[in-house]
Structures are given as structure tokens and as C-alpha cells.
């Protein structure tokens, strides 16, 4: 392989990973902006999506029904989590929210381990195993599918948030919760909706990536954290999250290709820590965060 084709190959895998981080980042920020809960179970929803699809598929359902059931189940679990675990906390502070979502994440992870074991699971690619060659680099149909679907999700979310009444109401509650309540927006329902949305989107990303990277009980936390990196670096806004997610993905793609595969996960987390440190340096004239 020439250097050019290698570079293109790494860029493609970077964009694929980046589009996924962007969507997971949106899952974090949708929940965080409306409910002020940093939902550490986001990554587990990604894992649940892939594992449930695999499990339903193994039970004999076709691929499409399994995908549908998996997304529906994950959405339901996410909403149940909000209603019966997070909402009843008696003294809701940032610390209790964090503890309870981390606890829920380890419960989900442990139950999946108990039920389906610690092996990596694989789903068949959706549209066969065809490969397209661009500048000497191979692109599988699944990769195209992932990038297309992630773009579609981002675009439709953008349209939903900016051009529908409910989307506008959601944005209003993100900006000012009390104000939104005063003009008659049912914030409790929105909390449920946001958790459901995050669960569903997380499951979808988990399902489409399962044919490429495999899935297993332990993938949730790290994948979720990378989405969180995108959300934080993007300043919780949608455009920012997408840009940050793609940058992160490319960085990781080239890092894995040219430096070391084993340490590529460290790279994303280091970026997060460096970014957070940079945030603390406030220069005169900068807006105080």
C-alpha cells in the first residue's frame, strides 16, 4: 500500500468512528441540557443495542425485526431508568445523579455479562460484503451505511429541533427550565422523551457498528466516554458536537494507523483531559464559563 492509500484508509475509518462519536455525543447533550443529568449509561445503551440485536437474531428473528426490537427495548429501558431510578432520588444533586447513573451502568453491564457471556459478538453486514475502492483504499458497504445513517440522524434531529413546535419547546427548556415550565411546557414528559431519544439513538449506533467493530459486554463505557469527549469539546451544541466528534475520530484513525493501535483509546481520553485543562485557563476578555 502506498502512503496515499494508507492515509485515505485511515481517514475513512476516522470519519466512520467520528460520525458515531458525534451521534453518541448528541445523546449525552440531549439528556444533559434538558435534565442536567450526566447520563453515564449512554455507552451501555450503545452496547445494549448491538447485543440485543445479536440475541434476537440468534433466537431466529430476521435482521430487520431484531433491529426493531432491540431499538424498542433499549428506548424502553432508558425511559424506565429515568422514571423509576433517576426521578425518585430524594436529594437530587450532581453527585447523586453521577453515582446513580454509574451504578445503573454497572448493573446493565453485569447483567449482560451474566446473560450472554464475555465473548465478542458479531452481526452480519446489512448489505452484503461488497467493497468499493477509492484511491487504493477499500470501503465496505457497512462503512458507507454507518456514515449515511449517522448523517441522516444528525440532519433529521437538526430539522426536528429547529423547525417543529416540539423541537423549539425542547430547546426552550434547555435554555431556561423554569421559564419553560411557566409557559406550560410539561418538563417531566420532556425528561422522559430525552432519555428515550438518547436510548434509541445509542442503540442504533450500537447496531450499525456491530458488523464492523464487533460488540461485547465491555465496549459500552469507553465508547460512551468518547461520545462525552465530543459533547464536551463541542460545548454541548449540535454543530460543535458533530465537528468535535469528526475531529476526534480522524485523530484516532491516524493515531491508530501511524502510532499504535493499543493506545488509540488513550488518545481520545487524553484529548478530553487536555481540553478540560485548557478550558480552565481564562485569558482577559474571555467569556467566563
Amino acid at each position, binding site marked *: 500500500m502506498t502512503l496515499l492509500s494508507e492515509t485515505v484508509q485511515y481517514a475513512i475509518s476516522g470519519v466512520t468512528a467520528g460520525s458515531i462519536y458525534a451521534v453518541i455525543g448528541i445523546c449525552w447533550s440531549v439528556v444533559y441540557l434538558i435534565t442536567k443529568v*450526566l447520563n453515564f449509561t449512554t455507552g451501555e445503551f450503545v452496547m445494549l443495542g448491538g447485543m440485543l440485536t445479536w440475541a434476537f437474531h440468534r433466537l431466529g428473528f430476521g435482521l430487520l425485526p431484531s433491529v426493531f426490537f432491540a431499538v424498542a427495548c433499549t428506548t424502553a429501558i432508558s425511559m424506565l431508568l429515568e422514571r423509576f*431510578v433517576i426521578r*425518585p*432520588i*430524594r*436529594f437530587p444533586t*450532581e*453527585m*447523586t445523579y*453521577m*453515582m*446513580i447513573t*454509574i*451504578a*445503573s*451502568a*454497572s*448493573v446493565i*453491564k*453485569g*447483567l449482560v*455479562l*451474566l446473560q450472554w457471556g464475555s465473548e465478542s459478538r458479531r452481526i452480519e453486514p446489512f448489505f452484503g460484503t461488497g467493497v468499493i475502492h477509492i484511491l487504493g483504499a477499500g470501503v465496505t458497504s457497512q462503512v458507507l451505511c454507518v456514515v449515511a445513517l449517522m448523517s441522516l440522524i444528525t440532519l433529521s434531529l437538526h430539522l426536528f429541533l429547529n423547525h417543529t413546535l416540539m423541537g423549539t419547546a425542547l430547546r426552550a427548556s434547555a435554555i431556561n427550565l423554569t421559564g419553560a415550565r411557566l409557559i406550560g411546557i410539561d418538563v417531566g414528559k420532556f425528561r422522559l422523551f430525552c432519555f428515550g431519544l438518547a436510548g434509541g439513538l445509542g442503540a442504533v449506533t450500537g447496531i450499525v457498528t456491530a458488523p464492523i467493530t464487533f460488540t461485547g*459486554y*465491555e465496549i459500552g*463505557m*469507553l465508547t460512551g*466516554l468518547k461520545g*462525552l*469527549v465530543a459533547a*464536551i469539546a463541542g460545548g454541548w451544541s449540535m454543530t460543535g458536537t458533530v465537528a468535535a466528534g469528526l475531529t476526534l475520530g480522524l485523530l484516532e484513525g491516524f493515531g491508530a494507523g501511524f502510532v499504535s493501535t*493499543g*493506545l488509540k*483509546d*488513550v488518545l481520545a*481520553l*487524553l484529548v*478530553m*483531559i487536555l481540553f*478540560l*485543562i485548557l*478550558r*480552565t*485557563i481564562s485569558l482577559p476578555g474571555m467569556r467566563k464559563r
Partner: protein
Amino acid sequence: MRDKRHPSLSWALVVGVLALLPFVTPGTYVTGVMCFVALYATLACGMAVLLEQAGLFSLAHPTFFGLGAYVAGMLAANEILPPWAGIIVAAIVVALIAYLIGAPLLRLRGYYLACATFGLLFIVEIVLAQSGSITGGHDGLMGIPPLSVFGFTLGGDLDYYFISWGLCLGCVWFFSNLMKSRVGRAVKALHDSEVAASSVGINVPRCKLHVFVLTAIMASLAGSIFCFYLQFTTPSMFGFPLLTELFTMIVIGGPATLHGPVLGSVVLIWLREAIHVYLKDVLPKLTAEVDAVFFGILIVAILIFMPEGLAGSLDRLAHFVRRHLGRSS
């Protein structure tokens, strides 16, 4: 639980019970388990001070514990330094790392500190697992010699029992004094209101950093003793499951007190032993991640139904009993 008017009496009681415990229980099983209780209690105690009293969401305590274990273990296993010197070097290294991370990050509020330290937790675990030639990788670090001080080799469970409970009680005593000192009062003040604290002349970032580094050193000491006791460490011992366990201890004990996390540690470790003894036939494999299911459910239940934790409820019970008896007599 403890009467606030006679703190020295309750201390004497606790020390007396702990000192007698290994001699009244048969075999070394209880002694061995109580070693873990003490080491985890030390860790949980420091984390509770950070979380509740200082209001800093640091999730990096398993990492400091792990680094303490790995640095001391690697120095001793490669015969670079004797074990006791390794413990000191590990504490210095961890303090340095905590300082370098804490100095910029403690300026962040709430969730951001949690995110950064959570990232650190995963970074250290991955790096330890990947650099196999130095750390032994996923399989773990082997060949750690037992702890020896000036020619005495500490072999049995009993020796480690007294060392780890010494560390644990020393840590509780140290933190309870620290919290009454200038730094401690400043930290509590800044938990209540940072603006008010800084307006009366408290150097807020420096106070936070002091407490952060001190708790990290305690975690490192506990980690070093842990590795010499087990004579074996793996990276996965210091990862996400340990964080869940620490949360459980803090939540069970109630984070507002110092003896709470110690109680939490007693409950959690014995619960884990009970799970391993009674459920080993039902569940196919009992890894730390499977234990975390029980602990996760416990955290959720306590946060919803009993938010003050065990120590808080016991304090309330003691208060109720005292008032009730006072009236009747």
C-alpha cells in the same frame, strides 16, 4: 453511632474490639477478610472527604490506589528498592501526579472534574494493561516479595491485619483532625459557598489541592500495602468495578461522616464474601463485574430510600433512643 461527647471512649472501644478480633475468631479467614476491609475503608474514607466535605467529584481514587500498588510492586519485584522504600516512593509519585492533575483541574466545577478524573481512570488502566514488558500486562504483576522492614519479614495475615487497620484508623484520625484544622474549615466553607469563602480570604484552589493530594497519598499507601498483601496485582483490579464498590461503601455508610465509609467497607466486603460463598453454584462466574450488579442495585436502592446511609440512620436511631431513655428516666 458514636457519642460526640466522648470521642476518646468510642475510639478506645473500636480499637479494643479490632485488636481482640483476630484472637477470638477461629482460623485466619476473618483476619484476612478484615485486612481488605481496612484497606478499602482507607480508600473510601479519602474519597468521601473529597466528595462530600470538599465537594470535589474526583473519580480517580481507584487509579491512585492502583498506581500506589503498581509503583511499589514494580520497584520491589525488580529488586530496585526494598518494599518499605517502595511504599514511600509510590506515595511521592502519586502525590506528584495528583498535584499535576489537580492544579489545573480542580478549578473546574462539578461534572467537569468528574469527567477528567474518569478519563484518567481509563487511561491508567489501559496503559498498565498495554505496557506488558514492565507491568506484566493483562496477566498482572507477579513476583512481588512480602513486606519487610529492617530485616523483619511480614508474612502472615495477622501482621497485615494490624498494619492495614493501623493505616485505616490513622487515616480516619488524620482526616478528622484535618477537618477541624484551618484547611478543613476552609474546605467546608468553600463547599457551602465558594464565593463567600474566597471573599473572606481563603485561597480556594490551594485548599482544594491540599485535600486532593492528601487523599491521593492515603489511597497510594493503601494500594501499596494491598499489593504486598496479595503479592499480585492486575490492571483490572483498579478499574471501573472498584469505582462502583467505592461508591457503594460511601453510599452505604453515608458520606457526611468519617466513620460512615469504614462501616460501608465492612458491610460491602462481607456482602461480597457472602455473595461468593452462597451464590457460587447459581451464577456461572463471579467476576468483579458480576459483583457490581449487586452493588449497583444497592446504590440505587439506598439513594432512593435511605439517602443518609447507614451511619446517618444509626446516628438518628441513637439520638432517638437517647431522647426516649432520657424522658423515661
